[in-house]
């Protein structure tokens, strides 16, 4: 690793810290400025004001807001995250330990699916510019980009789940298999491979197909269009013309030389789409009853569970920051002209 790259990395990582700090600070105060509180959101008028106050006291909600903020920062620094304020007040680290793997297990395949097929279809469209397949692919990309994700999910459920009975509708694994399944990491794919539980692996993969394709499709449209536009530019460029003159095969020119050179904008897009991916995960997880962080976040926002929301947002922020850092490093590896 060159020293300049090292310097760049250190700077970037250091910059991530204030970014996350600002993020969680904003979330902390916005959540508290919002009307409503965890006690009333959960129990409504079922408890007297006096008892509600006692419950608030127990949760530390009666402390001055700056003291609460201080405690919260302390919790974050020690990566303890504290306890949730609703739904049994469990340690947030425990709750996220269950939810984060579920979300990753859904979003990683979705992203892979979206980028691989998106880039592939985009390249195909660029190669066959203004032919039927190009128009078809473009139409497809607009269609999947504009269709609401929960609607797409429901259609898949009805067609592939209910009518054709090919795939399970919801959850991460067959309920019966899950009763005996031993999960150490909460990554079900990993766990089933580690325990050589092939039935569980098969069930997990089956449960993953519909949600990840739904989420992947919703992201794919942008990949198709971006790849196509950049490839068309690239195919028109001088070095490809030169290559063509030297008799290099068209497929090699398109899929190797042009495509490789369009990877910079595609990588940027992957970085940007990570944020979209998380937004999409919220809807996908609800539609497919996937016990991930998106569903968790929506539920806890409604309950005004301050600590749970703050911690979830912090994890999401870290996740997005991390991906964009990885993308920056990849730029340098892919494009020899980029030096830090």
């Amino acid at each position, binding site marked *: 690793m060159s020293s300049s790259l090292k310097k760049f990395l250190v*700077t970037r990582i*250091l*910059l991530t810290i*204030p*970014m996350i*700090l*600002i993020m969680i*600070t*904003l979330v902390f*105060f*916005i959540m*508290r*400025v*919002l*009307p*409503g*509180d965890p006690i009333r*959101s*959960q129990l*409504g*008028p*079922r*408890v*007297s*004001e006096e*008892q509600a106050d*006692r*419950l*608030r006291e127990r949760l530390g909600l*009666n402390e001055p*807001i*700056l003291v609460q903020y201080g405690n919260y920062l302390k919790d974050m620094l020690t990566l303890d995250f504290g306890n949730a304020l*609703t*739904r*049994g*007040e*469990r340690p947030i680290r425990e709750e996220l330990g*269950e939810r984060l793997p579920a979300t990753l297990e859904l979003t990683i395949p979705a992203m892979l699916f979206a980028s691989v097929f998106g880039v592939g279809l985009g390249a195909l469209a660029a190669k066959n510019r203004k032919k039927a397949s190009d128009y078809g692919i473009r139409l497809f990309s607009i269609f999947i980009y504009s269709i609401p994700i929960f609607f797409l999910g*429901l259609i898949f*459920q*009805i067609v592939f*789940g*209910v009518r054709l009975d090919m795939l399970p*509708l*919801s*959850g991460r694994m067959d*309920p*019966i298999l*899950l*009763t005996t399944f031993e999960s150490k990491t909460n990554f079900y794919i990993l766990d089933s491979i580690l325990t050589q539980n092939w039935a569980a692996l098969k069930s997990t993969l089956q449960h993953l197909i519909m949600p990840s394709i739904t989420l992947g499709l919703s992201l794919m449209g942008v990949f198709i269009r971006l790849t196509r536009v950049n490839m068309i530019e690239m195919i028109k460029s001088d070095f490809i013309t030169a290559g063509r003159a030297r008799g290099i095969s068209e497929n090699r020119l398109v899929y190797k030389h042009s495509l490789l050179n369009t990877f910079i904008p595609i990588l940027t897009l992957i970085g940007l789409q990570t944020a979209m991916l998380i937004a999409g995960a919220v809807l996908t997880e*609800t*539609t*497919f*009853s*996937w*016990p991930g962080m998106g*569903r*968790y976040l929506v*539920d806890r926002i*409604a309950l005004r569970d301050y600590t749970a929301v703050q911690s979830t947002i912090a994890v999401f922020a870290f996740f997005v920051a991390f991906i964009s850092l990885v993308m920056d490093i990849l730029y340098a590896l892919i494009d020899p002209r980029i030096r830090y």
Partner: protein
Amino acid sequence: MRSSKKIKMLALLMLVALLAVACSPAATTETPAETAPSAEEAETEPEEMAEETPATPLWTKELRQAIAAAIDREVIVDRVFEGRNTPAYGMVPPSYPYATEPFQDKYGTRDLEMAKQLLQDAGYSEDNPFVFDLWYPPEHYGTTTADVMQVIKEQLEETGMMVVNLQSQNWAEYVDGFVAGEAPFFMLGWFPDFTDPDNWLTPFASCLQSPDNGVNYCNEEMDALLMEAATSVDPAKREELYQQIGELYAEDVPTIPLFWEPEYITFRTGIEGVAIGGSFEFNYNVLSFTEDAAPASGDFDTIIIGTTDEVNSLDADDAYATHDWEIIKNTGMALMGYTPGTTELIPAAAAAFPEVSDDGLTYTFTLKDGLAFADGTPLTAEDYVYSWDRLNALEGQVSGLVQVYVESVEAPDAATVVYHLKSPIGFFSALAATAPFVAVNPNTFAMDAINSYPDTLDGIGPYRMVSNVPGEQLVLEANPFYTGEDAAKIKNVIIKYFADPTTMGNAVEKGEIDIAWRTLGPVESTRLSGIEGLTVQKVDAPSLRYMVFNHTYVLDSAE
């Protein structure tokens, strides 16, 4: 160099953000005591109201009666719910003891002429209408709420002397608002803690409790009647008192009952024993498969029940949510219980109905023989004392429900539990059927902390909980130490958690689950009722929607 500049800028930004928020209005944990009506209300008020002294509450008896007379529940139920819901002419569910329909008696289904007359008497006319805000939460009670409010607005405005401004607010904000007394007239739902009329009247009409529900109603006569009815143990006397209370309620209108909202349970052909009555208890142990059933699990020993609820707390000294109580009561047993599908109280962990002392302050329960927790530990009367001490020590969410009534608990011998009450109450047996009267297993539930997510739940009920994967599923199996005659017919129960009612509906249609329970919603239930192989059963849930007057609401004279 560049990066250090960036960091400085970020730090500055953060400081600005911090300051901005720190200077913004106070935290939501504070509940202002004064009422603060909005500016436009005050402006739109008729002149004579504005001239009154600021201490005069907005709601006079005539106005409340006029509104009660102008509302037509039959039309609401027909137009919004296509007849699925049931009009409510009293605050107490019809399936409960001592239920009456006083609003029907006083106002019929609707009395528009009476409403007009009352408004005229109050000094209003078509040129000088009574203008007020009606608040509702658009999402908390389902998407139909807005339609219901629209129909009510139309019905009230049909008098020609009222103008209703509909206002909506999301639930979290709404609760804060009405508890703080900011809404003059608003809509709420009620779900009981126990099957006694007291639980439907005292929270709204007693001087002590009505402020908690934003009603702020206080009438000495009503208070005395409620107290007498609550403390009386003679059924005939209570019957008469609740009749009187009903009449006074319709006359004085602390709140207006609107309708009963049913729930739906959908199950596949071949399942028997689904019975959920007015007590709203779902007993899994009486469920069974017929021979020609096709269990979703493929196994006649396992039934899968879907729900969109989530576990909040499985600690009986803390839990205060319907789904939690369902799990707690299937894995545990309160002192009293219900015949499945009815509101008929029967002894559960107790061998018989309690002995009541003459002053009505002491209830003595004798425990059934041979009861044991699912881990083999025998149940003794000491476990009830332990649970009571623990409830007081931990101050969980449900603690208030018991602490209001109970003074102390003692165990003179291993089979006898004695409850000393703060004041005599006629419904203690019904209260003893609630989840906090399920003795917790001391091996799982330590004295020093709430254990909302125990690994296992080894109670004395027909089932034990063996695993719980949050958001996915909770697994119950038959309690091996259960000796009752009503032991579980199906050995294993899997509760599968859904995030979305439509997905749950699809799952029961496809056969991934055997039963789709709370909350499927009317739209999905109607769709499923047309599908072969599925039975959609309407559950007459004791779930009331009602309108609340904030009786101490005053218009801001400063405006």
